[in-house]
């Protein structure tokens, strides 16, 4: 594998078995699965911000959790710096986790309410045996300064509820960075913040990325925000990637009808640019029995006969920009 890729995801699948009642178990042997992630390939390059966008149920969060190996894949491989994560034992995986950290949406939920902020940030240093006592405190104060949790020596002894929402999110960022990871998986890191705080946090994340040579996997439903941080972006729909490419290309010339709809649906803060209907009809169908062929075909305004029969493969439409749509593949023939 090329050294430019920090992460390579190959044929990744995650199927969750659907709970069945006792009677159902007696009557049928057939098991249903939620195909949360259903065959996904992509790579995250060293030093980039790779966006994973989609609506709820698209599988973007599960993909992030698989990369962190917070859940095990049903199929497929995840290579992190060339090592297959699935092949690692528990202890090896634990060591590997130092290099990959997560930031989640809800800073309340990810901070222990009974732990002081400083202790929460420094906890992982102790767990990995990297620092303790005064040394730990020093490293924690340093990272707190860098993420703008100041005055650090005072905030160190505060509890989460004594901080503002923005400060809590900074604490979560500080905790992720204290181990000096290579990869940060940020799942809707700013979705709960107010508009003005969002801009601040985005700016902070970009600055820290330079300072610590980070690579981000940025998972979001908000394409407007993604525009300000991502270098490349993949759009997911029902467990599949439908389009992937450099952000600029995907945004200025989206090829998949779903990507087009998703981009058009974002409310533009300009009353002179009011969107005209229509939007695609309906909502994301159940991932238990996803539609045949292209999963978007029942809602697609441009669906053809082939779309319900054959699943389109990702194909390159211009360098780096790949789309899984029969319209694109058939017109280029």
């Amino acid at each position: 594998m090329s050294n430019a890729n920090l992460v390579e995801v190959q044929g990744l699948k995650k199927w969750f078995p659907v709970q069945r009642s006792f009677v159902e178990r007696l009557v049928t042997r057939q098991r249903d699965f939620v195909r949360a992630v259903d065959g996904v390939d992509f790579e995250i390059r060293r030093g980039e911000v790779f966006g994973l966008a989609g609506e709820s149920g698209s599988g973007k969060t599960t993909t992030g959790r698989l990369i962190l190996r917070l859940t095990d894949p049903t199929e497929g491989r995840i290579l992190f710096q060339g090592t297959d994560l699935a092949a690692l034992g528990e202890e090896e995986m634990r060591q590997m986790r130092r290099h990959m950290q997560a930031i989640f949406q809800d800073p309340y939920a990810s901070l222990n309410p009974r732990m002081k902020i400083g202790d929460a940030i420094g906890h992982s240093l102790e767990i990995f045996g990297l620092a303790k006592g005064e040394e730990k405190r020093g490293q924690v104060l340093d990272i707190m300064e860098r993420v703008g949790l100041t005055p650090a020596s005072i905030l160190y002894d505060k509890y989460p509820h004594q901080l503002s929402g923005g400060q809590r999110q900074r604490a979560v960022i500080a905790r992720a960075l204290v181990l000096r990871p290579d990869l940060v998986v940020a799942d809707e890191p700013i979705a709960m913040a107010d508009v003005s705080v969002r801009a601040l946090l985005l700016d902070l994340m970009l600055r820290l990325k330079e300072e610590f040579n980070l690579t981000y996997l940025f998972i979001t439903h908000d394409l407007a925000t993604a525009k300000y941080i991502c270098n490349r972006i993949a759009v997911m729909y029902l467990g599949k990637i439908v389009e992937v490419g450099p952000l600029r290309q995907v945004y200025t010339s989206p090829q998949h009808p779903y990507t087009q709809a998703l981009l058009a649906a974002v409310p533009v803060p300009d009353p002179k640019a009011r969107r005209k209907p229509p939007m695609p009809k309906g909502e994301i169908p159940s991932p238990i029995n996803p539609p045949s062929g292209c999963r978007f075909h029942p809602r697609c305004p441009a669906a053809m006969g082939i779309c319900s029969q054959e699943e389109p493969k990702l194909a390159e439409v211009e360098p780096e920009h790949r789309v899984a749509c029969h319209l694109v593949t058939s017109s280029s023939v």
Partner: protein
Amino acid sequence: MNEPLVRIRDLTVVYKTRVGLVRAVDRVSLDIYPGEVLGLVGESGCGKSTLGTALLRLVRQPGRIADGEIWFDGRNLLALSEEEMRGLRGARISMIFQDPMTSLNPLQRISDHVVETIRTHKPQISEREARQQAAELIDRLGIMAERLDDYPHQLSGGMRQRVMIGLALALRADLIVADEPTTSLDVIVEAQFLDLLKELQKDFGLTILLITHNIGIVAQLADRVAVMYAAKMVELADVEPLFAGPLHPYTQALLASVPNIRLEGDMLKIMQGSPPDLINPPSGCRFHPRCPHAFDRCAQEEPSLAEVRPGRWVACWLHHT
């Protein structure tokens, strides 16, 4: 312009907390005209939702309306008995909240919700006629007829919000207060819902108070926009002039920090500082500690909301004479 449907005058809502009295809405005045969509924007804690609940007299303990007047169709709501108020809620003023599950009865089918609402509004109508009307209405909302007998939990969030709009329509409510109606929806479903709302608003001449933190939605839907900061109304204007040239430095900073998917350039403007503690709000203009244009007077005297140009209201010393 015609007579306003709602006139809010010097409305103050306070919350009692352990550390002191918080003025969540502080002497706010606002008119809502029939047939308009008035967008009410601001960040969390600015008082926009409290204003919406006050309008329905639904402020819960430990909060209460401390002062002011709310005139609705010629009556001061604050002088009505609780029973008279109950008659107005739902019937003439409808509410749509972020989570429609809280407003729908989980044990009642969608059709029964609509039929019951129609019959409350028109008691003389027969059950059969009401069912007929309910079916037409549901169709108008883009909900398939076969979903009529579903229970609320069987519908998606977008469908439930459609039902809420349908109930408001069935009642021919004069005013719809919509508080973050699309915040829990995915972006395509949100866009579908906003399209429907826009269409129904036009066809039925609905009056909507749209409370949201989402500046994009306001730009897409509102006729006029009111901006709140720290319990105060700071700016009020028609939507186009407001976005083209916001007057209040807070509105300017707020609009500049909103991501715009269409714009070239990849940096957002950052607003320094954070909103003040409402137990001890700053003196003078509440935005002055964060304002790049603040001068002496801003810290000493509070600017009132004044009409500086026809239809343009702003509470800022830069624009007052």
